[in-house]
């Protein structure tokens, strides 16, 4: 299914609004949409809502052997999925340009910025290391996927805990969560991507473009930065010429936004930690809004089973006894039998022979031993013929 194209008048309207420093949703030029972070019941699972854009991130880990070039470092693997749920234009199992761009940028944002202590993921040098996998699923697409995914990925990584391991000689024991408390990853800093959309060959700039704004923009600039104002990666796409001042100004805006977002992530993480410590309920079900008219919940409800046995007995009693099917093996050829009904098998029987009656098969099969029937029999199977 294709996405509905943007009409010319819509395009003009959007561009005019941007020229007048107005945005459809009433935001200012440098405003972010509201960000909401919720955690799942598992460690390392979170959803991030950026306005209407929604992404789900899940971190998992497994034991793997390290790369030969870096035997003491763990592995980090990121995978961003554009689910068809997010937009009908996203086709499953197709590497679109957007998908490649987002995956590459996310990888640069997380792996190349060295935000995780990879050496702490080593178990036995050169043999066993932890491989951390970050899966980001886009659930609803309303622009600025990169920022939402980078927030989701780094939040999930900070939330994640890997199982504890103990080593005795060459034996590695992975302790389940019930035995030993799982260990959080050591995270040096939190790179967060901030997107800038440029319009009219770089004359106008907007932070956090929504889907419609993304459709009319000329160019996009991603700046991934941490709260220490260190730029982790920067990428401009769309082929517009940016001036040095513009890039510097964008990096200044990014530093403000990044510190705001980092604070929000920390607040969300602390909140979740507190709830878990107190043994309260956590998970998406708890964060579901109860005030919404479209949501409803019920409490645990019992199902009565008292007369179930009688009902079952009655049904079985009343059921007609299945017609007695005699399971006589039918022999099509020597070494080939069929039990029960079904389509008559043509295995090992030449086409012109199928029409012949089954009664005379044993004799005929003996005659056709010379070659036209694939014979996979021996003396034992000829005894089966006697049964018929």
């Amino acid at each position: 299914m294709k996405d509905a194209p943007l009409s010319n008048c819509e395009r003009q309207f959007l561009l005019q609004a941007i020229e007048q420093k107005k945005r459809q949703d009433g935001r200012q030029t440098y405003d972010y949409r509201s960000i909401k972070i919720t955690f799942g019941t598992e460690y390392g699972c979170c959803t991030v809502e950026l306005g209407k854009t929604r992404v789900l991130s899940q971190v998992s880990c497994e034991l793997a052997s390290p790369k030969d070039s870096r035997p003491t470092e763990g592995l980090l693997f990121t995978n961003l999925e554009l689910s068809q749920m997010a937009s009908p234009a996203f086709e499953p199992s197709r590497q679109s340009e957007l998908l490649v761009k987002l995956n590459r940028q996310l990888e640069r944002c997380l792996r190349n910025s060295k935000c995780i202590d990879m050496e702490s993921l080593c178990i036995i040098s050169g043999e066993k290391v932890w491989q951390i996998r970050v899966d980001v699923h886009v659930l609803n697409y309303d622009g600025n996927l990169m920022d939402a995914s980078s927030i989701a990925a780094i939040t999930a990584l900070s939330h994640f805990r890997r199982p504890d391991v103990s080593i005795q000689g060459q034996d590695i024991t992975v302790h389940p969560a019930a035995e030993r408390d799982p260990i959080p990853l050591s995270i040096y800093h939190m790179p967060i991507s901030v997107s800038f959309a440029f319009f009219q060959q770089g004359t106008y700039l907007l932070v956090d473009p929504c889907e419609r704004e993304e459709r009319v923009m000329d160019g996009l600039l991603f700046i991934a930065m941490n709260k220490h104002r260190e730029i982790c990666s920067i990428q401009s796409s769309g082929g517009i010429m940016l001036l040095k001042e513009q890039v510097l100004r964008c990096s200044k805006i990014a530093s403000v936004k990044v510190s705001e977002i980092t604070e929000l992530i920390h607040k969300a993480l602390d909140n979740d930690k507190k709830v878990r410590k107190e043994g309260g309920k956590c998970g998406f079900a708890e964060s579901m809004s109860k005030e919404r008219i479209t949501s409803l919940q019920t409490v645990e409800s019992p199902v009565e089973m008292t007369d179930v046995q009688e009902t079952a007995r009655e049904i079985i009693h009343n059921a007609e006894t299945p017609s007695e099917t005699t399971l006589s093996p039918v022999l099509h050829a020597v070494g080939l039998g069929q039990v029960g009904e079904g389509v008559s098998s043509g295995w090992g029987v030449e086409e012109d022979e199928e029409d012949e009656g089954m009664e005379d098969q044993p004799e005929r099969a003996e005659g056709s031993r010379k070659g036209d029937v694939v014979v996979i029999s021996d003396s034992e199977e000829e005894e089966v013929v006697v049964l018929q």
Partner: protein
Amino acid sequence: MAEEASHTFLRQFGCEQSLLSKPDGSASYFQGDTNVLSGVYGPAEVKVSKEIYDRATLEVLIQPKVGLPSVRERAREQCVRETCEAVLLSTLHPRSSLTLILQVIHDDGSLLSCCLNAACMALMDAGLPMSCLFCGITCSISVDGQIITDPTAEQEKESRALMTFAIDSAQKGVLMATTKGSFSVTELQECIAVSQKASERIFQFYRDSVFRRYSKIL
């Protein structure tokens, strides 16, 4: 059979509809900790290769949380698709496509039944014509022969047999059944009877949620 157990439980369940802006219908359904998010697109333009001249083409996709969809997801997709095809009046939208996407958010047992319930809620939200509603119930038979409805992942692991039924709201008939493990005919009939009883709870919940949703408009 354990005579003393006269009750089995459905975990706390709930649903939020229309939570995503892009799909025509969406729902997030949870049963205990199991949570599935679903989105429906359609009726929409269909690829020529998938076009069916007298009805709509239904596609079901189940996305696992980690990794890519595997054979297990394909098998579940088929179960859900066949159930939906049984109730959807797809002849009303010939030569069009319906796409149902289910995203597993958390699996804590009874995943297929949660997928079915989420699918039904999303189809309701999208306003697609259906002959009746359906719900999914998972039953497990523990080693000592006790029937547990809506089992958790742990209960599933300890069970001897696991069955999931899709039940329609009109006749409480079984639309789809999938089983794992071994059990007797009596046990199967008992599980169906229990599921039919449990389905009443879920259908009441559907009714309540629709009532709530339209209460302020009426």
